[in-house]
């Protein structure tokens, strides 16, 4: 797998909404006070704007907060909004992780092909063409692997690159809370624990969500995303694999996302 060149402004914004929806975690604040209860929203939408997803216990495979102190559940009742809440016990970086069970969806061929194109899944388009499936509706299973990095007490220097064993996982290799606008964020993409090459990784700023910053992952699963400004960011990637032996599905997709904040004022700088 050769490195695909960076696609400069390759993705023209489409006027029509797409069938595919991103999924991400929006904590009530990215820098919660120690001792506070942090609300954790799950959001489904497009271009970093979406609908709040109330807690659906039937869909949760994992919903936790991981810090130096270990792993605690993000708790809540069915249909709660925010979908969960967790007490922040100690200062430092902490990761919120949400993994869903599979859902199934079937889309008309044209819609499905559009979404594959938009998510950079040209290989799936090619494979469907090879199988003669291009005109057929999709039969897809999909799941969500969302992470959010928060800085409890506004501090912390370690733990941002913790690997949580998500199906598809975006691992920042630099602490975003120690970054400034214009800095590059190296991110590693892992699928089932192994580097995933050739996947389109996209970053969106909450303040300028129509501007996609994207790069294909290299053979080590790495991208380096230059984030032009401070604020809240979403990094996302989708991976899709063929399904064998399931009468109801041909493809399985996993949607990874990572949200974090590059603080506007910037904390006391601590080089990595």
């Amino acid at each position: 797998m050769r490195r695909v060149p960076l696609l400069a402004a390759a993705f023209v914004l489409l006027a029509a909404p797409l069938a595919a929806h991103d999924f991400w975690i929006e904590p009530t604040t990215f820098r919660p006070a120690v001792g506070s209860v942090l609300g954790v929203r799950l959001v489904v939408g497009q271009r970093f704007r979406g609908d709040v997803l109330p807690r659906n216990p039937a869909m949760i495979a994992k919903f936790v907060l991981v810090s130096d102190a270990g792993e605690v559940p993000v708790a809540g009742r069915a249909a709660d909004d925010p979908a969960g809440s967790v007490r922040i016990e100690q200062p430092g970086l902490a990761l919120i992780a949400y993994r869903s069970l599979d859902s199934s969806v079937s889309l008309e061929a044209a819609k499905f092909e559009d979404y594959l194109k938009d998510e950079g899944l040209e290989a799936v388009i090619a494979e469907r063409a090879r199988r003669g499936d291009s005109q057929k509706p999709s039969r897809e299973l999909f799941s969500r692997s969302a992470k959010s990095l928060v800085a409890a007490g506004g501090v912390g220097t370690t733990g941002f690159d913790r690997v949580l064993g998500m199906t598809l996982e975006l691992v920042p290799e630099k602490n975003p809370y120690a970054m400034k606008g214009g800095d590059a964020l190296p991110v590693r993409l892992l699928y089932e624990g192994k580097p995933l090459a050739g996947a389109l990784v996209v970053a969106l700023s909450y303040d300028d969500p129509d501007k996609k910053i994207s790069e294909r992952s290299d053979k080590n699963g790495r991208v380096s995303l230059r984030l032009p400004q401070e604020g809240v960011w979403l990094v996302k990637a989708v991976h899709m694999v063929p399904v064998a032996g399931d009468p109801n599905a041909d493809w399985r997709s996993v949607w990874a996302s990572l949200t974090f904040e590059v603080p506007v004022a910037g904390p006391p700088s601590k080089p990595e």
Partner: protein
Amino acid sequence: MRRLLVAAVFLFASVVAASAHELGTIRVTARFQKGGRYEIDAVIDRQHLPPGFGASGTIDPRLGPIGNLTPGLASEIGGLVAASLNGVRIAFDGKPVSPPVALVLPEGGASSVARAPELTLRFSGEVPAGSGAFTWSNAVRLGTYMLTIRTEGEEQAARQWVEGPAESVPFVLKSEIVPMTRGRVARTYLVLGFTHILPKGTDHILFVLGIFLLSIRLKPILMQVTAFTIAHTITLALTIYGFVALSPRIVEPLIALSIVYVAVENIVTPRLTPWRVALVFGFGLLHGMGFAGVLSQLGLPRSEFLPALLCFNAGVELGQLTVIAVAFLLIGLPFRNRPWYRQRIVIPGSLAIAAIGLYWFVQRVAGG
């Protein structure tokens, strides 16, 4: 890339829901307003409908004509509307209702419906009087979806996941949004009208006592009370329906002044003059506006507007008649034939009423 595509796939035990938009392919929001109106929006996420869904089909006549669905639009999305709504069942306390339903036109109007990623169909109705709980179900099999229920005045929405064709968990309606039954309305507003006079309406009590003190004979009392009643009924209705409006800052001081007037005239003359009846009628118009102010603060149930208005007015009337009856029993019956009735009762009583009325007038002008 090929290597990835043929990579071994781990088949995890999977719980399969049927929607890419995790909120549901058809998500539902019900809004209940004070006074009993409700709107239920079924939002159809067209991007995630299964292929072929709603391609054809006829709309269940039980739904009635769909608002905004012109024949042109019906040829485009009629099947979708049918597939989405034919299985809907809205019920209060288990009893199904059939409110009218309309297509909510997207921002671009009817011409943009064909391309709209979401379609909203809105049921609008009135909560049946005395209802306890609301339930929703839709027989269409599209997986789990979110039902959001908002009640006016409540910050938090109630939410529940509805499993496919199953019925929602009954939502217990807040009493403020459930219209009362007609019998309840009648009783409630009769009592409200009565208590607005007795014991709350000291100014109205004094006015009625002023009317009573003019003459102990039946005819003058009857004529004044009738004139007063007809007048306040007229302005109460006209004000409530919005045909007339006069600021309480004008009405309330004038009501005080009307008390002063009847009391002073009681001192000047013991006879019922024609202008007295006319004036009492005029004052009745003012008091009616005062009643309307109170009634509009209390609120009237939309579904039982007229019965509530009539009962409130009747309650006011009963209150006034009670004041006169009590005054007659306590003052009229024992003392009316005494030679000093006028000197010791009517004149001092009227003086006191006039003084209080004058005090209120000054207070209301200054306070207003």
